[in-house]
């Protein structure tokens, strides 16, 4: 041995079992940190890919002059500005086969993207074939190829079938597929399955600019659109067209109304809880587990180190010897954690969760951060055990009397433990007087359990909130809900649906979504609730007699009578739901007030007769308001507010502020049946037993182009939550393993240190059975205490956690609740007890293996 420091290496070499436990524990904590950091860093880089995958993508097309183009391409937040033009096209007739993924309820739009032969086309990854050489050759993106039942290949001809839009030069012509390309995700055209062809020489080149959302989902919508509008007005741009990606439950409101304060509660709760879990987890790993591991390690060497001190070593020497071993274990575990981290990410994310959009590649930043984390944690973790060692006298260390002489013994009668006999009393006293070991074990277990509970509670909260969102928006119907935008033919739809045996009930709804610019918009916490055109959205709902009767019960007034001569009832919907979860004293604050209006005030809305006329002329009222704002032609009328109601309205997107009018009034006013013109959507109640989703989806899609369904929501939610559940379960199991590793580590040390005590007890007459009972009680005491603390802290902490997040997020979680997951608490407790019983068996086995006589003779 060339240096005394090499003693640390010897400990590593000759106490392999202990070293393996330490390495395994450090490995798990570093590995988890590495996974989190890698995913976080890669996710930041993957933002656009995520947006593309989730369908939360928007683009606006402007017509630009060359000068405007030169100006705008320098805007930092504009992702691409290039000369090109595009046209809309559908391949639905290709070879008589329907693309498989057209089965999705939303309308899929295929595009042919025309471009000049330039670097951008050549820069696409060519999977097969070559770039187009003339206007009649076409490149298909991989996604287009994959969307067909029978995949087209290079050399095939495709003949596009147009969908009624005014299209250009290629009508009736066939393209030859010259190549198949893989598009990079950053371009707008990749949002949809896309084909690329060369632009014809005689075509005037417009310029297209795509803006990418800078912020995420609903939160960024308003900001992003406002930004676009500012650029638009400052440069005098002319908007050609705008597109949004496929809508999912989390974006549907923002896409329709661009309200950014709605419906993010569930998502934010989820993110908040997950972030909190991760935060607590990292603190937990750093502060409790690693410290506990090294404490146990030092206790193991207490006698050796004391002897070293007896022969002349000082605390500095001991520190170096101990550090060499600890840092060696840290180094090994660090490299293993990097390898294990990549393996876990690959298996969990790619193979199990199928999250191919999230990059799990090597990140130098993550590598370095994990390196710092690992060594910093170990450095901090070994301080406390070394401080503890300093306080122990050499003699006590050699005798392993490190109980702490300052303990004051109070007379106690062991309480309920007396009921279980001498063994239980002894276990109780041991726990009470050997607090260090006991509290380490309890801390490890209880924190593990708390994190598991909060995690489980978080997932449960996400599920609850999202379910509430879903149910609320759809009026608690187990139904398809669809909005018919283009084909206003309610009778046709109705009779079609009535023929389906799996539809139990049908209900027509009437009304409009309108965006009047001239009505004063409400404010919530200083933010004006408006859409991109600075208009408050209004859900104009036209109720029949039966619906008004229902409403009468809610508002305590006869709604039929109130609305018999016109006027309206305003319904201020709630920001947080279900309503019964909102404390009584906060109901007022939880309302999203449609307008700051009182009864008998006037509300200016688009004139209904004009809307009806527009319907009759085949225009789409959904986009009516946009047009009316642009050309100022929208006629308006004032409605007298007859009553103000609060709460929810059953039906599609019913959490929009709603204005209710009587259908009866319109029938009278127009002196004719305006039912068709007022028709908005149909709610269907399905018979789950006979329901054939595929059949209905296909038929509705082909016949009516329906837009949203409850099942779509469910599909999206399940897809989202499957990921949460698997990831949550993984993290929970992971944390639990960490906790158990820590306990096993403690137990091994505890049994080692107490071997003489066990021998003494056996010598004075304790049988093996009694020893087993005592050890079982000790472990049970740890398990039960950890369980109790977990219940107590979880119960106590959930309220402050919510309060903190409410404060930080201000509007987000005012009244949300994070339910205490009693079932997880119960189950976790039972699992905990079972694990402790298993650990007790292990300790008993160790004690059984002990040679009583040699332990009694030993000096320590």
């Amino acid at each position, binding site marked *: 041995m060339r240096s005394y420091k090499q003693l640390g290496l010897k400990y590593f070499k000759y106490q392999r079992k202990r070293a393996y436990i330490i390495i395994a524990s450090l490995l798990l904590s570093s590995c988890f940190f590495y996974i989190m950091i890698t995913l976080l860093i890669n996710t930041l880089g993957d933002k656009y890919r995520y947006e593309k995958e989730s369908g939360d993508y928007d683009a606006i097309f402007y017509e630009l002059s060359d000068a405007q183009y030169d100006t705008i391409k320098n805007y930092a937040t504009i992702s691409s500005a290039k000369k090109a033009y595009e046209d809309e096209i559908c391949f639905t007739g290709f070879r008589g086969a329907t693309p498989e993924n057209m089965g999705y309820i939303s309308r899929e739009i295929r595009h042919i993207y025309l471009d000049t032969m330039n670097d951008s086309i050549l820069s696409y990854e060519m999977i097969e074939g070559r770039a187009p050489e003339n206007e009649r050759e076409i490149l298909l993106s991989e996604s287009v190829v994959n969307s067909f039942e029978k995949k087209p290949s290079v050399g095939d001809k495709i003949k596009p079938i147009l969908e009624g839009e005014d299209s250009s030069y290629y009508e009736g012509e066939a393209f030859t597929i010259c190549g198949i390309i893989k598009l990079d995700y950053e371009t707008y055209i990749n949002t949809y399955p896309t084909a690329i062809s060369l632009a014809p020489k005689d075509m005037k080149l417009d310029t297209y600019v795509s803006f990418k959302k800078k912020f995420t989902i609903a939160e960024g919508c308003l900001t992003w659109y406002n930004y676009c509008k500012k650029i638009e007005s400052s440069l005098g741009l002319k908007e050609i067209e705008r597109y949004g990606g496929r809508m999912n439950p989390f974006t549907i409101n923002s896409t329709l109304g661009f309200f950014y304060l709605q419906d993010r509660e569930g998502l934010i709760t989820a993110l908040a809880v997950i972030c909190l879990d991760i935060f607590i987890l990292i603190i937990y790993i750093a502060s409790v587990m690693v410290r506990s591991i090294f404490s146990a390690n030092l206790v193991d060497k207490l006698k050796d180190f004391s002897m070293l001190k007896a022969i002349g070593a000082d605390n500095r020497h001991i520190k170096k010897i101990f550090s060499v071993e600890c840092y060696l274990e840290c180094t090994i575990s660090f490299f293993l954690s990097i390898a294990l981290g990549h393996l876990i990410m690959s298996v969990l994310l790619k193979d199990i969760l199928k999250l191919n959009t999230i990059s799990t590649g090597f990140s130098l930043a993550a590598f370095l951060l994990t390196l710092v984390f690992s060594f910093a944690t170990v450095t901090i973790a070994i301080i406390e055990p070394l401080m503890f060692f300093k306080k122990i006298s050499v003699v006590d260390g050699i005798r392993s009397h490190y109980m702490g002489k300052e*303990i004051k013994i109070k007379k106690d009668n062991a309480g309920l433990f007396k009921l279980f006999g001498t063994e239980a009393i002894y276990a109780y006293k041991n726990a009470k007087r050997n607090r260090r070991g006991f509290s380490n074990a309890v801390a490890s277990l209880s924190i593990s359990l708390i994190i598991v509970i909060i995690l489980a509670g978080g997932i449960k909260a996400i599920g609850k909130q999202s379910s509430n969102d879903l149910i609320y928006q759809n009026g608690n119907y187990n139904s398809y809900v669809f909005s018919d935008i283009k084909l206003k033919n309610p009778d046709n739809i109705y009779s079609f649906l009535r023929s389906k045996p799996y539809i139990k009930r049908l209900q027509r709804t009437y009304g409009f979504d309108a965006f009047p610019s001239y009505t004063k918009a409400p404010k919530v916490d200083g933010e004006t609730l408006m859409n991109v055109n600075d208009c408050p959205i209004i859900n104009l709902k036209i109720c029949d007699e039966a619906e008004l009767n229902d409403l009468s019960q809610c508002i305590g007034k006869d709604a039929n009578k109130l609305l018999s001569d016109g006027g309206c009832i305003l319904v201020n919907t709630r920001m947080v739901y279900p309503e019964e979860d909102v404390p009584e004293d906060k109901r007022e604050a939880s309302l999203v007030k449609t307008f700051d209006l009182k009864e008998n005030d006037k509300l200016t809305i688009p004139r209904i007769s004009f809307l009806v006329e527009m319907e009759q002329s085949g225009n789409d009222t959904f986009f009516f308001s946009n047009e009316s704002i642009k050309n100022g032609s929208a006629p308006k009328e004032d409605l007298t507010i007859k009553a103000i109601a609060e709460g929810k309205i059953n039906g599609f997107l019913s959490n929009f502020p709603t204005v209710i009018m009587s259908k009866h009034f319109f029938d009278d006013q127009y002196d004719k049946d305006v039912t068709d013109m007022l028709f908005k959507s149909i709610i269907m109640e399905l018979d789950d037993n006979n329901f054939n989703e595929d059949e209905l989806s296909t038929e509705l899609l082909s016949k009516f182009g329906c837009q949203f369904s409850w099942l779509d929501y469910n599909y999206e939610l399940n897809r989202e939550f499957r990921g949460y559940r698997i990831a949550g379960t993984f993290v929970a199991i992971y944390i639990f393993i960490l906790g158990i590793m820590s306990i096993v580590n403690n137990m091994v040390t505890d049994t080692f240190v107490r071997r003489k005590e066990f021998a*003494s007890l056996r*010598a*004075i*007459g304790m049988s093996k059975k009694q020893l087993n009972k005592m050890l079982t009680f000790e472990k049970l005491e740890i398990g039960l205490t950890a369980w109790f603390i977990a219940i107590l802290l979880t119960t106590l902490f959930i309220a402050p956690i919510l309060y903190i997040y409410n404060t930080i997020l201000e509007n987000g979680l005012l009244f949300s609740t994070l339910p205490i997951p009693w079932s997880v608490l119960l189950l976790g407790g039972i699992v905990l007890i079972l694990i402790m019983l298993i650990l007790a068996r292990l300790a008993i086995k160790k004690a059984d293996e002990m040679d009583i006589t040699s332990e*009694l003779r030993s*000096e320590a």
Partner: protein
Amino acid sequence: MNIISVRNLSKIYNKGENEVKAVDDISFDIEKGEHIAVIGTSGSGKSTLLHLLGGLDKPTEGKVIIDGEDITCFKDEKLSRIRRRKIGFVFQSYNLIPVLTVRENIEMPVLLDGLKPDKAHIDELIEVLGLSDRENHLPSQLSGGQQQRVSIARALANKPSIILADEPTGNLDKQNGIEVCKLLKTTADHYEQTLVIITHDLSIANMADRVLRISDGKLLEQKG
């Protein structure tokens, strides 16, 4: 009347070339109330003999008969009961339970037997052994002599008929050692107990009724 009878007792560790005969075919009897000292050099097999007498270790051959019962064939439960009720151990390194106070350590064998400690008896032991002002202290808060006195009190707590003491003065200075032995002898006389004491201190051995000399596991002579 013999309270302990040892017949052809052997304890062999390891097999073959490494075989060590810690106790080699020993036979002797001890009468009730007799005080016996076992002497011998280090490694002669004294402690092994004591552990075999107390049922802490199983012999390779032979019998240990206590009160007419051969304890070598007893199972753990019965053996533990014998240790609790009939035998009290005193060890060189005290072997007290670190988390229990002086009184709790003394009461432990009684409690393990499922009985209520005889308070008057325990108080008397504490008083006799001079531990009155230390009864609520932990072992780590006591001196070596005090710890050994606690160990003696614990051995006497169940009023056993046999006290087996394994070099009880080994960790003590001369004066404390003699004091402890006197206490052992006095209390053993007081409670009419058989005392088997292992020592290499001849002055202590001479206090016994009979001395057994052991060498290389064999019983060389019995004097007394």
